[in-house]
């Protein structure tokens, strides 16, 4: 048992570190370090532009999408090299947030199902950040139940005509392309009538409307499709096999190991170390210490769980299922941590303006963003189902709509 790199890994790390040291936009390092959930911002700079510039610089030097093949804009690196890169990239990795969907989900789907010429055309600019992609799955009527989606695709010659609405599309407002899951046959069971496409987000008939979140920020959008035409050669996978195609996408969503999930613990520990209560420093208060200790072991447990997965990668093995706990644990933890940080401030905790609030309102921002973490990318409940079914081997839910044609499934709970 050790934490050492193999000689090969050490060499790769040294090369990566040297390149990052020489090339990273270090004028933003401090701002990025201070960023936490719900609050990532740069002083005097547009984060989108900074992120795109950093991604392009990485791509030009062969440091973008490390695990992708070279011909598609990657480096052909091993999984462990990808992890080492992430460790070395450190706070600058936060600049990749706008590319996560494209690189983590859209790219792998295109790679698995698109025509070769499309792959060579579309993947390199996706890797370099010159083109941004989004993922159009969720709908008002299909969140956790993705296969319940209703957006229609109807064949018209060599084209498909799309009508419907998507929701919760991250970054649709700055995306160039998207992968789109549609219903092509409503007369069969819901999983059997879906088809996947990719499309130009500037196509006529696509309308993007930002969603104003509970936090007041707008990271997500509604996307409306009115008679949008997509050529058949932009279909990903067979007609009506979209569900299987989407599983590739979703499997990739949770495969990013080593990126580390935010728990809010380091922020809370620092805060309690400096905060003075009536009877002395907060961290010397017994009640505070008990709370901190309970969160400390969750945060360290997640950290070491991720190290176990990295060790498996280092040995060329597939990581076990342990990593599936990350988002489930971190999501509610960061919500509780934020709530407690405000509790410690008494009535003053309500003040949230950066000029008046403690630590520039970091915990208020965390509190307001945290509910989304427990929903996006699989709700807490879906994550528990996944652990119960795939890890523990418990039976799947009884699906009352399984063999029912989609257009016969009830659409209202009460009339």
């Amino acid at each position: 048992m050790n934490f050492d790199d193999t000689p090969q890994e050490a060499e790769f790390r040294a090369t990566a570190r040297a390149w990052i040291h020489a090339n990273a936009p270090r004028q933003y390092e401090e701002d990025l370090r201070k960023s936490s959930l719900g609050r990532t911002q740069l002083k005097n700079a547009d984060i989108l532009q900074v992120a795109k510039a950093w991604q392009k610089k990485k791509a030009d030097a062969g440091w973008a999408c490390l695990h992708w093949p070279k011909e598609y804009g990657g480096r052909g690196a091993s999984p462990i090299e990808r992890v080492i890169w992430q460790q070395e990239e450190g706070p600058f990795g936060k600049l990749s947030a706008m590319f996560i969907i494209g690189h983590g989900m859209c790219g792998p789907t295109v790679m698995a199902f698109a025509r070769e010429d499309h792959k060579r055309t579309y993947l390199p600019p996706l890797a370099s950040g010159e083109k941004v992609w989004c993922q159009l799955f969720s709908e008002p009527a299909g969140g956790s139940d993705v296969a319940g989606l209703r957006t229609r695709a109807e064949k018209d010659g060599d084209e498909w005509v799309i009508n419907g609405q998507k929701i919760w599309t991250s970054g649709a407002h700055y995306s160039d392309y998207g992968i789109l899951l549609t219903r092509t046959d409503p007369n069969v069971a819901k999983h059997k009538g879906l088809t996947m496409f990719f499309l130009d987000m500037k196509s006529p008939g696509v309308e993007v409307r930002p969603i104003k979140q509970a936090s007041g920020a707008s990271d997500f959008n509604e996307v409306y499709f009115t008679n949008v035409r997509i050529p058949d050669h932009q279909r990903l996978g067979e007609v009506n096999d979209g569900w299987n195609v989407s599983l590739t996408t979703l499997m990739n969503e949770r495969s990013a190991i080593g990126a580390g999930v935010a728990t809010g613990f380091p922020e809370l520990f620092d805060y309690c170390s400096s905060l003075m209560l009536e009877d002395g420093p907060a961290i010397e208060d017994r009640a505070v210490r008990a709370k901190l200790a309970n969160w400390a072991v969750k945060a360290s447990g997640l950290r070491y769980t991720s190290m176990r997965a990295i060790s498996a990668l280092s040995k060329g093995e597939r990581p076990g299922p342990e990593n599936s706990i990350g988002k489930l644990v971190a999501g509610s933890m960061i919500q509780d941590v934020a709530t407690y940080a405000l509790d410690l401030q008494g009535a003053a905790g309500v003040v949230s303006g950066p000029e008046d609030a403690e630590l520039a309102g970091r915990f208020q921002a965390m509190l307001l963003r945290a509910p989304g973490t427990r929903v996006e990318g699989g709700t807490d409940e879906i994550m528990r189902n996944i652990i119960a079914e795939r890890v523990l081997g418990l039976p799947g839910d009884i699906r009352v709509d399984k063999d029912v044609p989609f257009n016969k499934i009830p659409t209202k709970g009460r009339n």
Partner: protein
Amino acid sequence: MNFDFSDDQKQLRDQARKFLAEKCSPKAVRVVLDGKAPFDKELWKGLAEMGFLGVAIPEEFGGAGAGHLELCVIAEEMGRANAPVPFSSTVYLAAEALLIAGSDAQKKKWLPAIASGEAIGTLALFEGKGNPSPKSIKLAAANGVLNGVKKPVPDGAIADFAVVAARTGSSGRDGDISLFLVDLKAGGVEVKSLTNLDPTRGQAEITFTNCKAEPLGAAGDGWSILTQVLDRAAVLCAFEQVGGSDRALEMGRDYALDRIAFGRQIGSFQAVKHMLADMYVSATLARSNSYYGAWALSTNAAELPEAAAAARISATQAFQHCAKNNIQVHGGMGFTWEFDCHMYYRRANAMALGLGSLSYWEDQLIDRMRKKNAA
């Protein structure tokens, strides 16, 4: 990075699991649970023969000289099997205290006897209610004799010798505490068995009256040695708790698959599935924290105090959580004497107290994290 046990260590774990599955069935555990024997003597003998008792004891003192990582994997299996033997008191507490502070003669006398299964040892630390602290130690040592009462002492009624924490000064500092070795079969000792939460591991009250004792380690070093012993034991116990958590989770999972209610497997209800998923989360966090503790223990790293406290808290929570909800999954049957669920529930809750309770370790963890940050 190789943050995992080696193939040899995993093989040792498989070997221990197979051995315990054969020699330490729930039926065997029940012999001790029902009070028909103070501990499983046959199993103890077998553990000695397998080399498990002395796995971390150097060869020159009769052990296998393997190391603490090997001891961790065996500890996990002992916890999984709920073994009714004085393994933790003898191996984690007494042997570790000797390894840290024993003279050559003391090690030669006791360590080979531990490895061969001839001697059972323990640590006599507590004196009634409360968590470990120099203040709580009142038992007096003067002129080579001890006077006072220790309780509860784990496996005290079956132990051959004890490491005893005693007061040798009254300055109010940690240096007031010294450790002593006592042959419990010699005079000056009165032992009384105590009924306790987990009858598969005994607890005793030991009264020392002008009892002869030899110093273990330098005078005044007692508290510092004790802290190290408790940290090491915290990691080793965490592995037992991880083994117990996994077993309780498996029992719950298996029952959820077998039991039919409302015309379907109860494991198909989300209320049950989610409870089991949460148990898996706790057990996984505990395992990962414990691995870090194992690394720190085996390399004697400066991180050990913090790692030990984190492993202790996380594994204690996980075992309590898994043992409690295993009963819940079983419904009424889980609450019967006949089903094995309560054996893990008892063990989980007894282990949560043995080295000092959760609130003590929470306090320790924060102290140690602050120290690290300040450094």
